[in-house]
């Protein structure tokens, strides 16, 4: 069949006057990037109840981490020899551990550690991964080919094993933990950013920029990177949860955050011996880890439903 279109009814006399064919653009339509964001956020709040709950939990965690010193009366490292293994009460909301340390204070300060590790890791991985993956995907060529192979290779080493290896080499410290986790999670950002950029690169708006004579660099910065936003922010949220798990796991086996800095994973590890008689020692850090990871996963899920339902990460 010949696919000739029949769109125009009477092509020789179209209406001679150009009229604005669309008047239904509502008057209250947003007119800036900010109000556009507000509109999108409002829609998110309306449609993603679970995601909003998760966001509330995340904000609560952030507040807890920022104001750890204000909301907890006790020093998290202080060992009250008189108050060892006390159950939850008015003075110690979550009780004390085997050394007489305030579990509530340790949970609050632990949030600071968890969020710092997760936050810095995700931030660095996002920035580095997006830039490297984005430019590599746009320019292609030999560099891209090699990078793709390296990313595949690094991603086939189990996250925890690679992180263990790096931390074992460098010695346990918050900085090394962040470094190790960043090395481990960045490749997935590179992969996602690259894949998206390949899609963007073949779009008409990029071809239009080429036709305007925009340089490749300008095209990546102005058109490519802003359009990577949706998948990357979703990946970032999910990765944040994974980073908290990894931090807790490494701290659990004594290779994460070194004492006296409180860490949820180490608290679980400490609690193992005492768990039968003093279950609160396990309960609170275990809940802190699970709830915060759950919050980031739920939020990431809701973001995906909101921004890009077809995305598979």
């Amino acid at each position: 069949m010949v696919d000739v279109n029949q769109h125009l009814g009477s092509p020789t006399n179209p209406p001679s006057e150009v009229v604005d064919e669309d008047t239904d653009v509502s008057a209250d339509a947003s007119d800036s990037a900010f109000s556009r964001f507000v509109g999108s956020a409002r829609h998110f709040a309306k449609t993603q109840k679970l995601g909003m709950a998760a966001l509330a939990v995340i904000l609560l965690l952030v507040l807890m981490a920022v104001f750890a010193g204000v909301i907890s009366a006790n020093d998290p490292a202080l060992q009250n020899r008189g108050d060892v293994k006390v159950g939850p009460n008015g003075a110690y909301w979550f009780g004390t551990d085997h050394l007489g340390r305030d579990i509530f204070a340790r949970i609050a300060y632990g949030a600071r550690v968890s969020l710092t590790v997760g936050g810095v890791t995700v931030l660095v991985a996002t920035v580095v991964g997006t830039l490297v993956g984005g430019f590599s995907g746009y320019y292609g060529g030999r560099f891209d080919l090699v990078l793709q192979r390296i990313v595949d290779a690094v991603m086939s080493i189990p996250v925890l094993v690679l992180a263990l290896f790096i931390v074992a080499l460098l010695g346990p410290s918050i900085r090394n933990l962040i470094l190790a986790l960043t090395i481990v999670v960045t490749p997935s950002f590179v992969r996602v950013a690259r894949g998206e950029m390949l899609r963007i690169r073949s779009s008409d708006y990029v071809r239009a920029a080429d036709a305007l004579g925009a340089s490749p660099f300008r095209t990546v910065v102005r058109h490519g990177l802003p359009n990577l936003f949706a998948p990357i922010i979703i990946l970032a949220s999910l990765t944040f949860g994974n980073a908290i798990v990894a931090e807790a796991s490494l701290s659990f086996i004594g290779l994460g955050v070194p004492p006296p800095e409180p860490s949820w994973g180490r608290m679980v590890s400490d609690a193992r011996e005492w768990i039968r008689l003093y279950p609160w020692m396990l309960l609170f850090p275990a809940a802190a880890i699970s709830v915060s990871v759950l919050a980031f996963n739920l939020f990431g899920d809701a973001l995906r439903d909101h921004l890009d339902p077809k995305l598979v990460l």
Partner: protein
Amino acid sequence: MTQLIVKRLLSGLLALFLIATFLFFVMRSVPGDAIDIQLAESGLSEERITEVKDEMGLNDPILEQYADWASGIVRLDFGDSLVRDESVLDIILRRLPVTLELSFLAIALSLAFGPIVGMLSAIRRGKPSDAILRVGSIVGLSIPNFLVGVLMITYLSEWFGYSVPIGYQEFWESPWVNLQQMILPAIALALSVGAATARMTRSSMLEVLGTDYIRTVRAKGADERMINTRHAFKNSLIPVLTLVGLQFGGLLGGTVILEAMFSLPGLGSQVFEAVRTRDYPLIQAAALVYGAMFILVNIMVDLAYGWIDPRIRAS
């Protein structure tokens, strides 16, 4: 088909080579070489240290060391353990079967439950049972497996007076004891993989259920159960398989902690110990072996597509 296998194996080998290179340079880029520190802390005499370093070729130029290491790998020679008086290869070969058993048991468990849960969830879309299964699977995905392990060990003995038999027995020595020792860590590992599988099955099955050909089958009057299982379920398995392949890496990482926690003499607990004793050649080789397992499993996943989808088999 054979061509496909050969192609995948070749690119797998390339990936392994890159992993090996990556691990080598990560190790050598550490400030104040890790092995120097290790040797300095070992209490050996100055002369002995130089000797050991010479034996290990650590005084050669870095590219030469790399070439030595890489050619060693090709011959499956990963050097000797810094701590044990044994070659790394022997240790790995001795320990690997336990890890293989554990991880395949975990995969089997997650495949036994995940897809079915996901299918039920999809069939009952929007009903309370769907909501429960969905929340359940994202919770399962969010609880770190070391936590599941701790909880299982504690509360099984607390509430049921059950404790895992002590002293590892291999499967052919005593299958019953072996399974008891394996099943708990396997469940802990299977939980997150199974949850991820359930989620993927649900969304992929919903997509298949919405397609025209399922509507055709329904219009022809096929009964719902047949539609759900024979047509939709089978066709929604491809993305699920891909996911299982990718999740396998996380599962291998989990074995490190869980083997140590449940005193299973696998590669994972060996890595755990090696990290404590800073036995770098061993960790390095183990990471390579894990990478190889991951790549192999993903090749198997690719081949399994052909079994599920005849179109892929044909091409």
